[in-house]
């Protein structure tokens, strides 16, 4: 048995763009481009990047909610890209997802009890009525919701409580791996901290493995063991989270960290302000995709895409002129 629960190898997702009278393919967006990484059991890998960098597509491709174009996803030693629908359904019991918007991801016509029971129904768990009731109450207890929540509807809850329901739903089938796709981005700061703490407690108690996707670097750095940074479909840097802040090698990572306004007056730092916008992924720049916004770009950067370089066992990056 390997120590890695999930291994992603050269994953690509290409969305064709159809156009013209005959609907011919006129271009393509490489939303995820040759991404490889591994996640250990019980670890949290954070995934950050700006909108449109492909982080959500990557998260969903791993569960095959979006069918990857090429590459391998090896979950617990098995390549799930080759699985048929039945095998896939079975493996999804072990890998779950929590979405960003707790308002849109709960069916408004179902009670919380029904919402939590549905995944168990599908996977044939706790079929005995008394067992199921016990399990439902246990789930509510785990996410710190009151017992009477079972008979209530999603609209009766606040955003933070709804996100707890979403977490309970993901936990219902006792998964090992959860993709958390921006689970706290829609919440107010004080509630965000409650949910982040809850996710960390659950990880400790249940031995969960997370892929934690967010654009908020502070939260990602806080919750993750390792952090991966994406830019225009490529993974540009991966490192231990404490290595990344202060020790980033890729100029983009450095700029991303420096762009965060700090609320601590003691930690005001000089700011790197990137010029321009994120280029369109339909028509990415040649060479290193970051070169038009990079202050360290040279001729090389325009010509060739940098290969993966390691500065230590845990720290990899793709840059011709690392910091």
């Amino acid at each position, binding site marked *: 048995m390997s120590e890695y629960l999930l291994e992603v190898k050269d994953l690509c997702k290409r969305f064709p763009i159809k156009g013209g009278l005959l609907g011919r393919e006129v271009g393509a967006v490489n939303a995820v481009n040759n991404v490889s990484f591994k996640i250990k059991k019980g670890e949290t890998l954070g995934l950050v990047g*700006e909108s449109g960098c492909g982080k959500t597509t990557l998260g969903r491709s791993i569960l095959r909610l979006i069918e990857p174009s090429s590459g391998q996803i090896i979950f617990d030693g098995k390549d799930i890209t080759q699985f048929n629908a039945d095998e896939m359904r079975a493996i999804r019991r072990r890998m779950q997802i929590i979405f960003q918007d707790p308002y849109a991801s709960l069916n408004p016509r179902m009670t919380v009890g029904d919402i939590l029971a549905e995944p168990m129904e599908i996977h044939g768990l706790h079929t005995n009525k008394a067992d199921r009731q016990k399990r439902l109450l246990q789930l509510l207890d785990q996410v710190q919701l009151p017992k009477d929540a079972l008979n209530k509807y999603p609209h009766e809850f606040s955003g933070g409580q709804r996100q707890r329901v979403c977490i309970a739903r993901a936990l219902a089938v006792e998964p090992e791996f959860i993709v958390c796709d921006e689970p706290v981005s829609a919440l107010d700061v*004080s509630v965000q*901290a409650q949910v982040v703490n809850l996710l960390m407690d659950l990880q400790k108690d249940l031995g969960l493995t997370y892929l934690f996707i967010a654009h908020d670097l502070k939260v990602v750095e806080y919750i993750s063991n390792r952090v991966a940074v994406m830019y225009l479909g490529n993974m540009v840097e991966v490192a231990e989270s404490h290595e990344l802040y202060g020790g980033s090698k890729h100029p983009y990572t450095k700029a991303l*960290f420096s762009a965060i*306004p*700090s*609320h601590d*007056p003691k930690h005001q730092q000089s700011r790197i302000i990137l010029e321009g916008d994120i280029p369109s992924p339909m028509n990415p720049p040649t060479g290193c995709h970051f070169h038009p916004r990079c202050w360290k770009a040279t001729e090389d950067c325009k010509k060739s895409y940098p290969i993966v370089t390691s500065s230590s066992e845990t720290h990899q990056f793709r840059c011709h002129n690392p910091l």
Partner: protein
Amino acid sequence: MAEKVLEVKDLVVEFKTDRGTVKAVNGVNFDVYKGKTVGVVGESGSGKSVTALAIMGLIPNPPGRIAGGEINFKGKSLVNIAGEEMRKIRGNKIAMIFQEPMTSLNPVFTIGDQIEEVLELHQPNLDNKARAAKAVDMLRLVGIPSPEKRVHEYPHQLSGGMRQRVMIAIALSCEPDVLIADEPTTALDVTIQAQILELMKKLQKELGMGIILITHDLGVVAETCDDVAVMYCGQIVERADVKTLFNHPQHPYTKGLMESIPSFDSTTGVKKERLQTIEGMVPSLFELPSGCNFQDRCKHATEVCKGIQGEPHLRDIGAGHQVSCFHPLN
């Protein structure tokens, strides 16, 4: 002391609903000075946007109304003035930018048309040619590349950051004295947010307007504001200049907000501690407790907070620092 351009005094805004009347804003006070930025921070539902809409005279009536207090712009009251008169001030002397640059621009007009519309309304002495030239100038001012070309483009052809720049160009085209920015960077990525905040600071220096910056992001406040007001359930619970507030927060809510943000302090790799949280959630405006609104979530709450001696009021505790709490922290 800089010139005071806007004064909000004991502002109360009520909304009639099926479940009774609620006070979305309840006794809010603050001043805006020329060339300075006031930050209004709070979580969703704390009344910060309603305060902004009240200043702009945009509270939908019914169901809402300004039930009390004063809004004075350069000594002139904006409460209960005629619609015609307010229209001359709104967008001209007091301008506003919104959170969603996507929905606040009209998709069927070019961005040039939309800047010119403001000029047409407020500067009728300009002819067509001068207006078109001014539109290009404004786009150049907010840092949009090749403005002569961009002026003929539609909102969908621009990125989110560019759209927010256009919004700023529209708001500033009449050189307002007060700019209200309601979560101007919430919908943007961090690198773009940094660009927009920098731009707003630069333009403030050049044009000298007072800014009211409404946000839930304490980081943004710390880096851009001069004075800060923290709102909770329609009231200001703490007010101070930015340094004092962040170094010595007095209200347990302010402190709680600051502590619930993970910070980059722990770069040593040691296992991080749990995030501090504020227990519970914001009470519904229909079921506000008597006494202090924050009592149920507060670690320091005592009998007195339940309102046996009335509600807490904003009181001075030192140079320009005000707090509304029975048990300020130190």
